[in-house]
């Protein structure tokens, strides 16, 4: 019934989508690894970045792949400012408060977008969107191929930064032992904000990669972030490698399950997997025991 060709195509497609999932999950896992909270505003920030990429193309005519260079630093700044001037001071150093503040921010951002742009769904058409490389057994659309490569470049850059720069070392120090890092003279509030900024920049890059092949509306980010939660939980909270592998795995699982089960049941499959992993092995497949 299903030819191997369709199956291979589904797997390749899943890998291409999974890479972008992995990038979103990377931002989430980075913030969790250092601040030890789940950033519930991640999805809303993704939606905001998708709107930014959309208008950059529609109004200013900036190609989304070029817009990465503008939006990534811009969203780094937004993330930095949010953590430094809102989330940090508002939560008085209490984890539960931090969760609530990110939830509150998510509600504000999402509904401000709804208020401004209504529930309309928007898309852009790049002139080269339909170009691609035909491998014989599968067709690789150009936009998604660029996305795939970009994700690996970004991950590599992030890894280099974390292991070779002073800021990276400071981030790792704060993640491991906050009080000790503070005593050693590291400005923890600044490092928290840098980490949050990096997480937000990941989301901005993902938005630029998504916009050529997806649509944007005020809810668009949520679908991706729920998947990203699953990936992060699967890969282990705070694990970069886990996020990357988890993203690719989930991409393939989703692609195959919607091939066999249809769209909406495929979505439930991901949720059930998510709950099952949380209940059975909450530290994830790659994470250390919490």
């Amino acid at each position, binding site marked *: 019934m299903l030819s191997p060709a369709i199956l291979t195509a589904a797997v390749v497609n899943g890998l291409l989508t999974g890479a972008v999932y992995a990038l979103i999950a990377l931002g989430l896992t980075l913030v969790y690894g250092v601040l030890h909270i*789940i950033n519930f505003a991640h999805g809303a920030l993704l939606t905001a970045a998708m709107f930014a990429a959309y208008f950059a193309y529609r109004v200013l005519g900036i190609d989304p792949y070029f817009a990465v260079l503008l939006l990534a630093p811009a969203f780094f700044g937004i993330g930095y400012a949010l953590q430094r001037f809102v989330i940090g001071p508002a*939560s008085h150093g209490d984890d539960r408060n931090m969760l*609530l503040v990110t939830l509150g921010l998510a*509600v504000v951002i999402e*509904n401000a977008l709804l208020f401004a742009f209504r529930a309309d769904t928007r898309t852009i058409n790049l002139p080269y969107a339909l170009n691609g490389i035909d491998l014989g057994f599968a067709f690789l659309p150009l936009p998604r191929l660029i996305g795939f490569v970009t994700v690996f470049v970004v991950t590599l850059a992030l890894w280099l930064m974390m292991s070779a720069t002073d800021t990276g070392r400071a981030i790792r120090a704060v993640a491991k032992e906050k009080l000790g890092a503070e005593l050693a003279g590291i400005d923890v509030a600044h490092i928290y904000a840098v980490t949050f900024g990096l997480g937000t920049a990941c989301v901005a890059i993902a938005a630029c990669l998504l916009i050529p092949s997806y649509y944007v509306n005020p809810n668009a980010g949520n679908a991706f972030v729920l998947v990203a939660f699953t990936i992060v939980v699967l890969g282990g909270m705070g694990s970069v490698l886990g996020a990357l592998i988890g993203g690719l795995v989930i991409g393939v699982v989703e692609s195959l399950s919607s091939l066999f089960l249809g769209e909406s049941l495929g979505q439930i499959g991901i949720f059930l997997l998510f709950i099952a992993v949380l209940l059975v092995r909450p530290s994830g497949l790659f994470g250390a025991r919490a």
Partner: protein
Amino acid sequence: MKEFGAVAIVIIAMAVVPLLAVSNVTLNFLIVALMIALAGQGWNVLGGYGGQYSFGHAAFFGTGAYVTAVLQARYGVNAWIAFGLGIAAGALIGAIVGGLTFRSGLRGSYFALVTLAFAEVLRILASVAPITGAGVGTLVKLDLRPASLQFQSRAEFYWMILALVAIALFVTQLIERSRFGVWLVAVRENEDAAAALGVNAMAVKLIAMIISGAITAAAGCFYVQYFLFIDSGLAYGTWMSIEALLTPIIGGVGTVFGPLLGALVVRALGQGAQLIAGGEAPGLDLVIYGCILVLIIWFAPRGLMGGLSRLRNRLLFSASAAEARHG
């Protein structure tokens, strides 16, 4: 006993409102606010006293609503019985979700995430399952007789939801004064320390979650009796999860009257925003809710009740200081 007296006085004062010739619009506003307060009272038992912050209380609200609606619409069950079973279903969901998550030792971020995921799974299931009416939703037949728990006038609905809120207030007051309540607060403040002192933290959290689920489900059951319709977005949508946690946090987490006070304030602000924006302004009320949530945590972490008690202390202090000066 003084505390129970305070509950009784508030309830009696509120019960008189419909007799004061208020308009139907005002009454409708109060009914919805009380319904939200009830949902928030459920959240407050688990989140306020137990410190377990659920981001998915819509799971309970929606289950209560669907059980009440589906039993009446599809199986012709009497409304009173359906209402009771709806509350029981909420308690059951609380037992299942709580049993699974607390046994795996999920706390903080993880607990918030799992509860959110459960509400989402239920929402997707309800939007495809035939028994819930899938995308169309479920309608309950209009039958304005007390026997089917529907009333001719708004006032009677108002008293019904007020009675439910009153029960929840007494339950909360009972918890606060009981040994169980002390255990619950101990778990909130430091779970490991409480466990070391012999508190069965897992059982305490589970019981709190069951009570919490039952109370929030009651709000869902009432929703169906009042609006006679439910669909997956209304039942399990994020709006209910947000309002259920917003009301106690604004009013004062872990206080008896917090959710009630919070619900009235939140609803008034939401309505006000819609009025100012004039007509259609999708999302504006939620923008305001989100801002209030952040501002309250930032500047008044103990909510309005905390602010009130601080004000009272300051007044008492300055009065006694003045006395001391003159005396």
